[in-house]
Structures are given as C-alpha cells and as structure tokens.
C-alpha cells in the first residue's frame, strides 16, 4: 500500500493540534492514520457531484431568541477549576518577549 501520509504530515498535524509528541508516537500515528485514511478512500467510489453536503442531522437554520440578559457564572465559579489563577484572571506563562511561542 502506498504511504498516504508521511511523518512530516503527522508532525504538521501534531503542531496544528497542539500536541507535543515523541518521534516514536509520530511514527506510530503516521502508520495508524495512514491505515484509517486508506479505508476512508472508499468514499471516492461514489459520484457525489450534485449531492448537497449535510453538516447536521436536522438541517436546522438559525435559532433565534429574545436578547435578554440572564445570570451567568460568577468570576469565582469560572476560575474554580483553573490550574493557576490570579483573580479575576486566569494565569498563564509570559506570552510576549523571549517566550513569544510563535
């Protein structure tokens, strides 16, 4: 079977997915995802030229409601599960400067 995705592709997916993976994991996922994607190629057997895509089971359109304020979560409740906090804020490592993360 021809290789459907390369390790380079898998690394790119890991980066987009924000998953820090080891070389060994990348190798495993490359192989496993390749097999699953190979199976999905089945979809190419069908002619779907004039078929409308279906994103949702009920073909719903916009659901509207009156724009009335209601009680939400308090700051305290919102922060309750945060791994690090400095009320009323969530605490994160330095974003700008040397640690740009770009």
């Amino acid at each position: 079977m021809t290789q459907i995705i390369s390790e380079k592709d898998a690394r790119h997916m890991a980066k987009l997915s924000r998953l820090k993976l080891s070389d060994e994991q990348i190798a495993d996922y490359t192989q496993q995802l390749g097999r699953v994607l190979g199976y999905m190629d089945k979809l190419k057997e069908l002619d779907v030229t004039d078929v409308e895509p279906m994103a949702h089971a009920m073909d719903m359109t916009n659901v509207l409601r009156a724009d009335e304020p209601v009680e939400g979560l308090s700051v305290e409740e919102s922060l309750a599960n945060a791994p690090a906090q400095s009320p009323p804020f969530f605490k994160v490592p330095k974003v700008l400067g040397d640690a740009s993360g770009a």
Partner: protein
Amino acid sequence: MNPCSTTLTQLRDAIAKGEISAVQTAQAYLDRIALHDPTIHAFHETYNERTLERAQQVDDGKITGPLAGVPIAIKDNLCTTFGRTTCSSKILDNFQAPYTATAVAKLEAAGAIVLGKTNMDEFAMGSSTENSARGMTANPWDTTRVPGGSSGGSAAAVAADFAPGALGSDTGGSIRQPAALCGVVGMKPTYGRISRYGLVAFASSLDQIGPFCRSVEDAALLLDAITGHDPLDSTSLNEPVPEHYKTVRQGTPKNLRIGLAKQYMSDANDPALTKAVEQAIEVYKQAGAEIVEVDLPHTEYGIAVYYVVATAEASSNLARYDGIHYGHRTENPDDLVDLYAASRAEGFGEEVKRRIMLGTYVLCSGYYDAYYLRALKVRRLIKNDFEQAFEQCDAILCPTTTGPAFKAGDKTDDPLAMYLNDVYTVNANLSGIPGISLPAGLTDEGLPVAVQLFGSWFDEARLLQIAQVYETATSHQHHRPTMGN
C-alpha cells in the same frame, strides 16, 4: 421484594405504593455496588450520602414525581455540580462542573436519584471502555470480556443490577452497542430530542443522550422524564414531546410494516445474530406485521463517513482543553504554546490524540474537499436511503452488532478493527433517526446478543411500541448474568 432485581417501572410502582421505602431501595443498590463493583468497575464514584439523603426526602414526601426514589447511574461525561465529571480522562481528572446537565436535572426533578458516575471510553471515543484513563470495566456476563463502549460502565451497571436504569450518550453506537453486549435495553432517540447541555461534547452533530434499562416500558418512562426542548441547547428540538409511557401502555400498533435490509445481514455476522434476527422476523409475522424488504445501498460507507465527521468535530470540540481554563496543566512549560502542547499531550490518552490528529487532517486545506466535504455529501446519501426506506415501513429490524462481547485486549492494537465494531450503529447517528437495542437471547457460550430497531425521525413512541411487541413475545430481557463470589 428485592429492589435490585425488578424493572425500573416495577420499582417505581413499589416505592409509590409504599411496598418498599426509597431508603431501603437506595441502601440495597449501594450495598450491591460495594459488594460486586470491585470486580466489574462500572462506577468511578458513588454518592452514598447524597443518595441516602435524597431517598429519605422521598420517604418524607419532600421529593415527589414519576420517578420518585428510583436510583439512576449516569455516564461520566454528564456534568453535575456534585462529585467530579472526568470523561475518564486525565485531562479532567479533578474537574468539578459548575452546572448540571439538563438531562440529569430533569431526571432528578422527576424524583430520581443519581447514584454515581460510570466508566466510559475517554471522551466517549471507543467501543470497549478500554480507552479509559481510569481502568477497564468488565462485562458482568464474562469478566474477561469487554462491556462494549463507549458507555460501557452504564451498560454494565444495569446488567449487574447496580441500578435499574442509567444514562449514556450515543455518538456512533455508544449506547446501543454496550447495551447489546451486556444484555440490556439501550436507546438513542432522534437527534435533538434530549438537550445536550452539560454533556461534554465529542461530535456535536451526532451526540445524543439516551437510557439504559431492563425493559421497553422502562425506556419509555425515562424518556418521558428527559425529553424536551431546552433553551440552553439551541440544537434541541422544539417539537411536541410524545407521551412515550402512555403510548407503550396502549399496546400493539396495527398494520405494522417491518423493514429488512440485506446490507445488515452480512455473512460475517455471528450465526447467533442471524438466528436472533430470524426469530424476531417470526415474532413480527406472528403479530400480524408485514415484512418488507428495504434497500439501504449506502450502508457500507457509514464507517468511513462517521470517522471523518466525528473526528473533525472532535478535533474542534477538544481544542478547549488548553491547560489554562480548567483541567490538567503541565509543569514548567517553556512558553505558552508549549504549555498548550505539553498539557494536551500529557492529559489526553492515545485514542483521543489519534482522533484529534485525524480530525485535524481531514479538515486541513488540501484534504478538506477529499475527505470532509465528500463525507458530508455521502452522509446525505445515507440519510436519503432511510427517508426512502421509511416510506415503505414503520421500523427497520437488524442486528446491533456483528457478534457478542469480545475479549479484553483483542482489538486494542488495531484502531481500524475497533472502528468497524460500529458498522450497524453509526448510520442512525449520521441520519439522526432513533434506534433501540433489545436483548435477543444468549449464544451457546452464554453471552448476550441483541436485535436493533430503527424508527423514523421523531417516531420514538411508536418505535417503543414496536419494540415491546418483540419483548413481550420473547422475554429475553429476563436473562440475568450470574454474579461471582
């Protein structure tokens, strides 16, 4: 009476008539869980004190309702303000939800009591409950086998008589398949019937909450409590709610037409499944139903469509686990991006990472048209198949699975083999139709098998009536596993 060996409906009636108290009932279930759950591991945690307090309030007349005093187990992806909600994931290990899921709140408003949270595949991704960061669940019929998944803990809890009913969620078969492998009734209603508010999202266009129980009547009673529009979930249906229980009590529907599709009768099915479907056909013929052949030509594409759509939606839904707002955070990250990537890599299990990667791939520019868009188009073809079929019949009869429960560890090395477990269940989710899995006897080895009925959109009440015809004629639901010790 032994409250652990009755149906939910009988138990409800016995409590209402004062034949048994809610406290006695709750204590009996908690004792049974304490005795046998170390072997099964259906539950992550039980709320003993809270359960007994609420039971006392039922006995004191302070809590009333159609489910007053009935203990219920709930899957650990349903948020509750009491206890933890972990989705069997390390990333949510200590998560305490700030609100309660609508379906759970409705159950308790009807008088039911949440016993505890049940094990599941991490984020509902799996078909065996082996993808749990918190250990496996054993099948009560044979503890070397899986209970199915992803709602394996809820199915095992009902099968092991740890609860007369349970809630699960079904994204590609995660209620019906474990119900089948554990020999209990499991139902996925029409998409949108039950609010998803407070259900931790996996694939939002497919996820639906539904009941596990010991009889069709029980399913009707539970659906009555949890069905209905919820302003907090804009995808919940704003349609009249059927009176499920009342309809089921009315008895057999007239002029039934039962559809059979050859696409579900593969030679690869276990012979016990083929026999079960044949027996079900006989039951319906005896009941005066007309058996009609229907064609569902795009059935075989369901798995491919499902694993494109479900992983695409999951990759987006699970982006919220960032190590900042809640959940696991890595120690000593290099910078912000490293904090995200390391927290997620440490917190998610292998299958969840695999699906996030897959979903990211199929949504990527360059592959979007070939996989995601194409899958959405084939999804339409699968839905069209059902629309045409339901012009000719009232329900479609098929197996729920291709075979009985498999051994733990048998499929864990092969993700694709595990995905193919869902072959007879995913198309109901892709189309949005309701489906119910019913116990259909035992294999020679003593393992449960099941038949499945699909109904048309919004047609749950009649689907339950049709299911009851089979249940009454066969009494397979009375088979119970023998618990060890």
